[in-house]
């Protein structure tokens, strides 16, 4: 009977051995899975660190921010800035003996970044001219950013390309240098025309308004108004003193005090060369201006004629530009119309700005926009009004249709009497809103190249290298 005992023992031992093998295999499998999961986590963390590096570089390239990385030689193809520890920056090519290499400590220990100017095949620095890369120097450098992020043994590299913007004059929905007054039930909000049409009331909340004034009650809001954005007063001003809010006023972004006063220097009309004299005095029918530079002592359109712009046309009017009745100015697709008026400008009738066409009005005198506008592209940057008068002028918008456009007239008293919505940005010496048209600030105008100081950098390319 002793063999029975032996048999049981063998079976027990066998089963225990097999279970041990199973547990061993299971542990090995779990260990492998844990290592793979850890590796996956480290990879994700390294990726996030590399992205942090890109964002830090972008932020620090902007002038006026804390921990700025200055670019003192924007035309130097060999300039390079590094952020990170010395050893990690050396992996990115940092040479401490190279006077064109500048290293800064990063704000985070998990990444190192290299910033350089983009150059062409012949090592010339490239700039962004608003539509394409160019070797013509400007304040709009193109930066190449390489960011190495790591965690534990894993590293990730992200390469990105950024374009420096210039600070646009169109940085508010409404801005009155010395005074801003809004009467009536209107609101301001924002949208971005690059992303499509304005979606809905208050969708974006950058419909900011402001003034450089610090004087008492120079920013007056009366009625039932909502500012989907903030209200700015001049540097050192007290919002409680400057603002006068009467009625049901809602300011979603609150009140702020400007750090620096907004620059209110008028733009100059472009200098044109030899111009071909032309007479535009239409009562009916039409006239077409093809590409070229023209001059006229005055322009008069009565009735319902059409002035067609075909090609890149510049028209200099030494007197008044007057449209009475229901005439049409038709800027055809792909054309550009630069209208420089020394006298007063009166727009009745219609303005058509067709796809990809642009219309720039440089007005030295008073401007009255009474008519309606057909902007097929619904892009405010395609219709810009520049008030060039160095002392004073009046700009009045009484439009009977929605207007897509922007006005920059630092010495103008701008008055809104229309009841249709306005899409764009309106900057003047004083702003008076009497109508019921709401103001939708186009955030894309904030990145428009209006020849200002270097602004923030915006990404143009992004790639993950490993």
């Amino acid at each position, binding site marked *: 009977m002793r063999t029975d005992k032996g048999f049981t023992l063998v079976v*027990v031992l066998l089963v225990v051995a097999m279970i041990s093998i199973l547990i061993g295999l299971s542990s090995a499998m779990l260990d492998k899975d844990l290592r793979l999961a850890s590796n996956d986590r480290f990879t994700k963390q390294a990726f996030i660190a590399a992205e942090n590096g890109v964002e830090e570089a972008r932020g620090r390239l902007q002038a006026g921010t804390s921990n700025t990385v200055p670019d003192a030689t924007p035309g130097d193809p060999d300039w390079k800035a590094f952020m990170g520890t010395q050893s990690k920056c050396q992996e990115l090519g940092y040479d401490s003996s190279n006077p064109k290499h500048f290293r800064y400590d990063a704000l985070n220990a998990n990444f190192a970044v290299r910033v350089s100017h983009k150059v062409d095949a012949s090592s010339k620095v490239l700039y962004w001219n608003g539509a394409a890369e160019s070797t013509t120097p400007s304040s709009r450098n193109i930066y190449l950013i390489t960011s190495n992020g790591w965690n534990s043994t894993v590293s990730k590299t992200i390469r990105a390309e950024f374009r420096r913007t210039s600070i646009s004059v169109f940085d508010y929905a409404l801005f009155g240098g010395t005074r801003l007054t809004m009467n009536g039930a209107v609101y301001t909000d924002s949208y971005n025309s690059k992303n499509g049409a304005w979606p809905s009331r208050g969708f974006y909340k950058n419909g900011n308004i402001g003034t450089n004034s610090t004087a008492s009650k120079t920013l007056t809001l009366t009625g039932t108004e909502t500012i989907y954005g903030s209200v700015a007063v001049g540097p050192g001003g007290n919002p409680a003193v400057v603002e006068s809010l009467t009625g049901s006023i809602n300011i979603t972004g609150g009140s702020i005090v400007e750090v620096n006063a907004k620059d209110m220097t008028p733009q100059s009309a472009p200098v044109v060369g030899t111009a071909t004299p032309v007479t535009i005095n239409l009562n009916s029918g039409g006239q077409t201006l093809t590409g070229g530079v023209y001059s006229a002592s005055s322009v008069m359109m009565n009735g319902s004629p059409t002035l067609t712009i075909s090609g890149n046309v510049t028209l200099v009017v030494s007197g008044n530009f007057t449209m009475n009745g229901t005439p049409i100015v038709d800027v055809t697709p792909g054309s550009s119309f630069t209208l420089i008026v020394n006298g007063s400008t009166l727009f009745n009738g219609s303005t058509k700005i067709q796809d990809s066409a642009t219309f720039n009005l440089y007005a030295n005198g008073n401007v009255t926009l009474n008519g309606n506008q057909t902007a097929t592209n619904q892009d405010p940057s395609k219709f810009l009004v520049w008030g060039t008068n160095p002392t004073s002028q009046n700009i009045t918008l009484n439009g009977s249709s929605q207007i897509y456009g922007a006005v920059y007239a630092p010495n103008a008293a701008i008055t809104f009497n229309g009841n249709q919505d306005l899409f764009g940005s309106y900057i003047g010496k004083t702003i008076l809103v009497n109508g019921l048209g709401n103001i939708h600030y186009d955030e894309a105008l904030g990145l428009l190249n209006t020849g200002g100081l270097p602004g923030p950098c915006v990404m*143009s390319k992004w790639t993950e290298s490993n």
Partner: protein
Amino acid sequence: MGFQGYQLIAGSRREIIMKKQAGFTLVELSIVLLVTMILLGSLFGFYVSQIHSFRSQELTINTLQNSRIVMSVMTKDIRMAGYKPSGSSMVGVAQATPATLQILSDKNLDGSISGASEDVIYSFDVNTHTVSRNGIPLLDNVELLSFVYTLDDGSTTQTPGNLSKIRKINLTLRVLSSDIDPLTKDYKRYEFITDITPRNLPL
């Protein structure tokens, strides 16, 4: 002991010597066998449960690992959508349906889309339960592959009309284990959900 035997041993002086003999009764044997069987049965049951547990764990880990790799590959591809030279009007998403996504990225910046790495189509065959990358099966036993697109105005849709307005892609992948889980007698299901923002799409 309960059993005693007697043996007659011949001798000159005949004596009867009673010698004890060790042994088991039938009842004792039966009890021992029964206890042994119960013990062995328990051990075998434990062994079988361990085998099932091991198999279940193996299914989990294999499914997770395969899915994780596929999610990683898809995320990386989708993130690169719209990478292109300056001035190019190329749209980074060429096809966007609830279960198919075609991604374009001009990785060598030569101005044209060429090769399987620049033109990537992810599709889901509901009949074969397979997710494919450019027609090549990438993952089997997929129960669901679903894309939801966030547009530039913040709205979401599975059937975007204008592909240039896509800004973010939500990816849901539900995968079944390759075999039935012996513990639950059903397939294991794992669902992965991620939001991917292709950095180059709005540029």
